[in-house]
């Protein structure tokens, strides 16, 4: 545990990069949305922070691992400490998103009829559901980004392309199997703006399971990484 906290502190020597950048980017996108005016149309701006968590996960491995190992940290501790940081950030950020969603509702879309922190189907329920789904989604993308960073460090661009290709094949296989089983081609096919078969919390559960898969995959991949 000490080693994990040591790694988390290492990442936080430059807090602006890890804590500030995702929110600063989101603030910029929000400002653009606000400037465009509020027609209550969902513009998917919130997706930016999820993307930033993915990028942060990639960078925490790609840029921070070599010096971390030079400082006498094991790969296992570096991985666990970095994941701990990502999950902690997701926990807090999910709470902030839930809070901002509450303010957005209370102020009629920030007084401009903006729908920014409410995402139809996925993030549009009570605050605790928004918190949980945001937390799980942000954690998933951070850990997924870490795995990409590890694959890139271990096998380079060729490995990265192979990694992506395998995922595409798995996705196609799952989709094909689901289709063959009579469940429909798409899991989230909208019908009146709602998914056909899965609730938002159900989807959160699926993402949580995928996060565990990513965590296990990243852990297995980092064990033989060299710097």
């Amino acid at each position, binding site marked *: 545990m000490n080693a994990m906290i040591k790694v988390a*502190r290492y990442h936080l020597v430059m807090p*602006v990069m890890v804590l500030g950048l995702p929110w600063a980017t989101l603030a910029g996108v929000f400002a653009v949305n606000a400037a465009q005016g509020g027609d209550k149309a969902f513009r998917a701006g919130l997706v930016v922070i999820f993307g930033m968590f993915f990028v942060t996960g990639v960078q925490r491995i790609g840029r921070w691992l*070599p010096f971390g190992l030079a400082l006498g940290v*094991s790969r296992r501790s570096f991985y666990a400490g970095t994941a701990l940081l990502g999950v902690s950030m997701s926990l807090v950020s999910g709470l902030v998103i839930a809070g901002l969603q509450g303010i957005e509702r209370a102020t009629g879309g920030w007084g401009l009829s903006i729908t920014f922190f409410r995402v139809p189907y996925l993030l549009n329920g009570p605050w605790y559901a928004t918190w949980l789904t945001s937390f799980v989604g942000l954690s998933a993308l951070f850990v997924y980004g870490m795995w990409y960073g590890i694959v890139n460090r271990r096998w380079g661009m060729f490995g990265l392309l192979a990694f992506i290709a395998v995922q595409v094949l798995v996705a196609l296989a799952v989709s094909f199997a689901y289709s063959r089983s009579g469940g429909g081609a798409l899991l989230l096919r909208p019908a009146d703006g709602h998914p056909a078969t899965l609730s938002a919390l159900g989807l959160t559960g699926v993402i949580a399971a995928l996060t565990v898969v990513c965590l296990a995959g990243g852990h297995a991949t980092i064990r033989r990484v*060299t710097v």
Partner: protein
Amino acid sequence: MTPAISATGLTRKYYDQVVLDDVHLAIGARTITGLLGRNGAGKTTLLRILGGQEFPSSGSVQVLGAAPAENEDVLRRLVLIREDQAYPDYQGYPNFKVSHALRAASFCYPNWDPDLASSLLEDFGLRANKAIKSLSRGQRSALGITTGLAARAEVTLFDEPYAGLDAVARQIFYDRLLADYADFPRTVLLSTHLIDEAAALFENVVVIDRGRVVLDTAADGLRGMATTVSGPVLAVNSFTEGRPVWERRGLGSQASVVIVGQISPEDRERARSLGLDLTPLSLQQLVVRASGGPPGAGSLTERTSA
């Protein structure tokens, strides 16, 4: 006594290229050892394996009594400073600064000495708020040396730590290393190409050539191991008769012969009476020999085992 660092049958291959070939090594605790050899000899790979950053293809290494790879108990007592150390640099703002690197190191090493770090930065003229990506090669080396010394790790591995440093800064490194080593003895393994300059530091010397250890001995035993005898041909021939000879050169009536073996006081007296000059081979010259030497030269290991 259990060595602080040991390797047994250590081999590292990259595809069909053998970088380390059946390396056997034992380095005593609380010593300063020079790790010497040509470019591509395998020094950096050996240090990376000792530092847990690389894995052996076969064989084993032990640091402080255990395998270092993924061993938290060993790794937190070990620091590896590499010439090509990568830092978390970013393009544009914000910058990863010298102070960030040192603060991160302070989290990781229980014996970290902030005063020593500050003092070394001052000696090297390195500002703590300077961005690492804007440092010159020598300044990056100064940062590595500062990290390596202030960590006060039980095992300190330096891989060409002073690339790009000027002569004054290198002397600062030697002086500070010795001073801090006297206060806090530790096991130091230092890889360098500036052999004669650093020779006075070494208690032991390990020479690697093409992935194999060709020399592993106490530095004191190495000093005076070979001597150049020069003077009139007849006198040189008389003096060197019956001694193992590495190299013989002549120019007119003068000759210069490198002989192996210690020179006794009686030998010195005799050389003086014959009008001969005796010049011990420097550590660098010995390492050149051990590493195969210049074309036509016999190898140290072949000669000494003869």
